[in-house]
């Protein structure tokens, strides 16, 4: 047990006690500093940073301009552009989001544009894992960014402020990553101190100073020239010099921060290292646990200590050499491996640093722990200290490199195979027929009888974990009733994927592939073309027939839009299905481009300074229609016969002509905030107010399948919007202008489809 005194008057700035998580603290400090621009894209566990910021923005607590990217790559581009224009820029991301943006990060550092990126560390896929480790952090240690490590919510707050000031210093001019641990820190509330007056923070960082601005017409400049040898190496030398120059700057800013806040930081933190003989070097939240255990072992007379870098880039090599002077054994615990290098990144750094001290005799050895978010208990720290004590005693490490906490498993156990494969005869119940009318050239679908179609085997098994009343599974399940024979499915990352394939179980009775949602369509096109090529070579029987179906949410068609359109342009014989539930539901309901205007989400809040999403919804069906693929359709579970009919046509086109795109309206009771049982009714009201026109485009010719006005069913959008918690605010008088703009846009789009339906040339 360690005692601490919570003294909010230790520093010169006034502070107040709060109880906040790492994500809340990151958002709070950025709001207080009033950064200019944030380009972001939601990804667990960093998502909340943008959510909290947007919530505060809606209440008028800051003026940060928040721009949702089409993906992390786009978000990084927004950030880069914004930094050239002479202001403060912030971003928050995690895991594959970081890796998706990674080619942008050397651009940011190589052109010397400071900004701050809060990296909420998470395991890099695949297989997909949302919990915390350092595999993302370790992949950005050589990008020319300063890297600060925050072990708890308080240091997340402090280090974001410090990093802002350090990176902008004229001797440095580098972007900074402030990394904390996903969930362990990002989602853990702690007692914290935050500045009472924003001005104290703003005075600390001072006004933003740029060297060149891309928006100053009086001083034209070229950002990012074409630079080969002999110049590039000099640019990098400058970067390296700046990196090392930052050491002194960081020390000074830490000292300033201590004066202001009362909290002391050093680039390498040491704990009970004065006379330590055995030590653990470990990053972030786990360092706390190690310190707790070190105290216990010290009480037993064992000479143990802990070192943890607060600045990982530049690496505090000299500080480590000093700290290890008397240390006999140092166990470096890495929460990510550098596969094949016999140690994680920090092990390699530590070994390299100590090698430069000719007198150093420390035995340095490595343990990889906590991957994929595996918890680090005090028991783990005890085991590690015992290993270090043993190595100190013997003068060598019995096992120099190993995984800590990996389990061998029970070799007698086999994953139970529940269901046999679905025979083709069973999945071809001959209920529906699709024939081409040779005279009109049109497809005629007969036999859409839902009762008979209950004989269709379930390609998706029950037992999945979707929320009660979810719209994804009625939509996809009904679509699959119209698809005969063998099916291979690829699902993008999203709700549908997460709830069906939690290891080691699967809900798929057919073969299923997951890929991250930037890239599902190309991935499935690859599988399809390999199938065809192997068939051509006689490796697969010529009469084997598989229908390839990709399923994505509307979110996956934001970040994965380009690759999906590319796949459509290549016209592979496959089907892309979008279940559109108007938001990023898997991460807790952030806005997607498909979110309609004015709708509340966790990144488009409702408050005095913000009224839901500020721009109109994306029209993905029309985007795909523009690729001139043979068949595009929209459908909904409420018009299930129409949906099944379109499925049968989709399969015909995918077998005979090329790519099909279908957009399905998919309710989300949890996040739209409506009763679990009104999915059908709610869907119908979205259709009846013209929001979601049911139509199909075959070879460029549009057919409107259902015209609410013609059927005497036309409703005003308020009948639809009034049914959901996320839109009820739009019915208030003060939001009449948004409602009106929304109605106009919905009607305009509907009338356009209708006109296209009436004129084959449109």
């Amino acid at each position: 047990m360690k005692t601490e005194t919570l003294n909010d008057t230790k520093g010169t700035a006034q502070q107040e006690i709060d109880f906040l998580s790492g994500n809340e603290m990151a958002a709070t400090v950025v709001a207080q500093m009033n950064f200019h621009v944030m380009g972001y894209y939601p990804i667990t566990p960093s998502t909340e940073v943008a959510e909290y910021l947007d919530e505060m923005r809606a209440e008028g607590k800051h003026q940060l301009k928040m721009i949702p990217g089409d993906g992390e790559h786009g978000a990084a581009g927004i950030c880069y552009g914004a930094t050239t224009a002479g202001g403060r820029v912030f971003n928050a991301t995690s895991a594959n989001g970081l890796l998706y943006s990674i080619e942008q990060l050397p651009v940011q550092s190589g052109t010397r544009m400071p900004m701050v990126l809060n990296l909420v560390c998470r395991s890099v896929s695949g297989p997909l894992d949302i919990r915390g480790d350092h595999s993302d952090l370790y992949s950005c240690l050589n990008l020319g960014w300063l890297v600060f490590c925050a072990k708890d919510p308080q240091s997340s707050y402090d280090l974001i402020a410090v990093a802002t000031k350090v990176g902008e210093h004229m001797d440095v001019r580098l972007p900074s990553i402030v990394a904390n641990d996903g969930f362990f820190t990002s989602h853990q509330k702690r007692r914290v101190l935050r500045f009472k007056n924003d001005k104290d923070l703003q005075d600390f960082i001072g006004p933003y100073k740029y060297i060149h601005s891309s928006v100053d017409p009086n001083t034209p400049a070229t950002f990012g020239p074409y630079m080969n040898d002999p110049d590039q190496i000099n640019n990098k030398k400058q970067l390296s010099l700046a990196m090392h120059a930052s050491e002194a700057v960081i020390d000074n800013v830490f000292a300033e921060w201590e004066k202001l806040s009362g909290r002391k930081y050093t680039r390498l933190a040491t704990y009970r290292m004065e006379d330590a003989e055995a030590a653990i070097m470990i990053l972030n939240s786990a360092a706390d646990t190690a310190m707790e255990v070190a105290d216990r072992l010290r009480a037993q007379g064992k000479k143990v200590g802990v070192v943890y870098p607060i600045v990982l880039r530049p690496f505090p090599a000299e500080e480590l050499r000093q700290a290890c002077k008397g240390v006999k054994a140092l166990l470096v615990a890495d929460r990510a491996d550098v596969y094949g290098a016999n140690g994680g990144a920090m092990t390699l750094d530590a070994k390299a640093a100590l090698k430069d001290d000719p007198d150093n005799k420390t035995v340095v050895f490595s343990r990889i722990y906590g991957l994929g978010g595996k918890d680090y208990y005090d028991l783990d720290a005890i085991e590690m200290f015992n290993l270090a004590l043993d190595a100190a005693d013997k003068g060598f490490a019995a096992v120099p490199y190993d995984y800590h906490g990996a389990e061998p498993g029970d070799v007698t156990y086999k994953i139970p195979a529940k269901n046999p494969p679905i025979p083709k005869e069973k999945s071809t119940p001959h209920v529906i027929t699709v024939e081409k009318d040779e005279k009109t050239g049109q497809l005629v679908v007969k036999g859409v009888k839902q009762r008979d179609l209950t004989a269709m085997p379930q390609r998706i098994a029950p037992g999945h974990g979707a929320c009660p009343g979810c719209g994804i599974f009625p939509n996809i399940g009904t679509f699959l009733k119209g698809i005969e024979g063998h099916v291979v499915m690829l699902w993008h990352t999203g709700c549908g994927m997460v709830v069906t394939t939690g290891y080691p179980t699967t809900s798929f009775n057919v073969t299923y592939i997951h890929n991250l949602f930037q890239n599902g369509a190309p991935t499935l096109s690859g599988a399809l073309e390999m199938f065809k090529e192997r068939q051509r070579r006689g490796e697969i029987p010529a009469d084997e027939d598989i229908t390839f179906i990709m399923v994505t949410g509307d979110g996956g068609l934001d970040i994965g839009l380009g690759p999906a359109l590319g796949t459509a342009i290549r016209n592979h014989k496959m089907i892309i299905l979008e279940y559109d539930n108007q938001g990023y539901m898997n991460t807790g309901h952030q806005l997607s481009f498909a979110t309609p205007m004015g709708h509340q989400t966790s990144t488009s809040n409702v408050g005095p300074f913000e009224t839901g999403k500020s721009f109109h919804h994306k029209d993905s069906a029309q985007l795909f229609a523009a690729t001139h693929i043979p068949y595009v359709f929209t459908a909904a579970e409420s018009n299930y016969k129409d949906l099944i009919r379109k499925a049968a046509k989709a399969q015909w086109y995918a077998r005979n002509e090329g790519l099909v795109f279908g957009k399905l309206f998919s309710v989300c009771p949890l996040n739209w905030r409506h009763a679990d049982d009104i999915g059908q009714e709610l869907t119908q009201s979205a259709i009846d107010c013209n929001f979601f026109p049911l139509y199909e485009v075959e070879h460029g010719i549009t057919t409107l399948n259902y015209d609410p006005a013609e059927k005497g069913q036309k409703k005003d959008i308020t009948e639809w919007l009034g049914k959901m918690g996320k839109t009820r605010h739009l019915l208030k008088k003060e939001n009449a202008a948004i409602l009106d703009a929304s109605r106009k846009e919905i009607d305009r789009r509907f009338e356009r489809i209708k006109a296209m339906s009436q004129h084959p040339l449109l």
Partner: protein
Amino acid sequence: MQKLPIVNDLGFYEIRMASIGGFGANVAGKILGEAGILKLGYNGSNFSSYGSEKKGSPVAAFVRFCAPDVAVRVNSPVTEPHLLVIFLESIARNPGMLSGVGPDTIVILNTGMDVDAARDFLGLAAGTLVVIDAMKIAVEEKTRVNTALLGVISQVTGFITHDAVKEIIEETFGKKYAATVPANIKTFERGTKEFTMKKFAPDGKYQPQAFSRAGQKLGYLNQPIGGVIPAAGTSMYKDLTASRSGYIPVLNRGKCTSCGECDITCPDYCFEWAGETNKKGKQEQVLQRIHYQYCKGCLRCVEMCKFEALTTHVEYEVDKHIIEKGYVNDIKETQK
């Protein structure tokens, strides 16, 4: 400030709350944490362990309290709780639920059972058991069980006070959902009264469960490489009963026309069909039953059914054998 009545070696009073998404365990943890730290002046921490943001998936919320001058340097989940709160009877017997529970632990269980029956149901070796029918209160007040359970908590720990929790409930709900504050306060106040508590000494009737991380069946020696699952449809083994919040559909085959619309709307693929030969000698699909193992009680099927063959019922009023069988031939069968 009241001295913490009991702490572990590190100086913490530790709370674990077990639930599934949608019942408000996460919010309850946050409210307790804020009450302890911001209103009562302790130091501490609060976090939840959860996967994705789904209603119905397992959630555990943790709260730690320590004296104001003790540093929090632990991030891992609570393994030996001083207070264990079980939000639903249906998850109470999940493996590991009572792990680390000792004679000094207070266990709060949301159940309609009396305290002795609840002890046997849980297999509780020793400890103080508190029972409350929070689901009943929540249904009556149109709230969630979390505020009722907070009411109990504010009475039994000896340091978390009624007023502190009440103030935070008002602040928390008042910020975003002001209209729900009175109902939540009423639920909370009922929680402070409508519970029974009994201390069980370690009498050898049941064995305590120690915290353990061992026993993973698939490990690096036998996990199929690449994370591939070489099997189909294994989620059929799962039991999703715990996802329901009190209501179920009942299938009355006496009224069912096997039209097939329920099968269209059911997100959970609960309906079983079979081919039968009809009077005219023709083969046709006939709806057989509901598999309640998968039913999350969304009641979409009831909304969809034009023939009143599917109707809504309060789950605990429906005889268990009907749930096993999956249908009735006459709705009167549901009346006990």
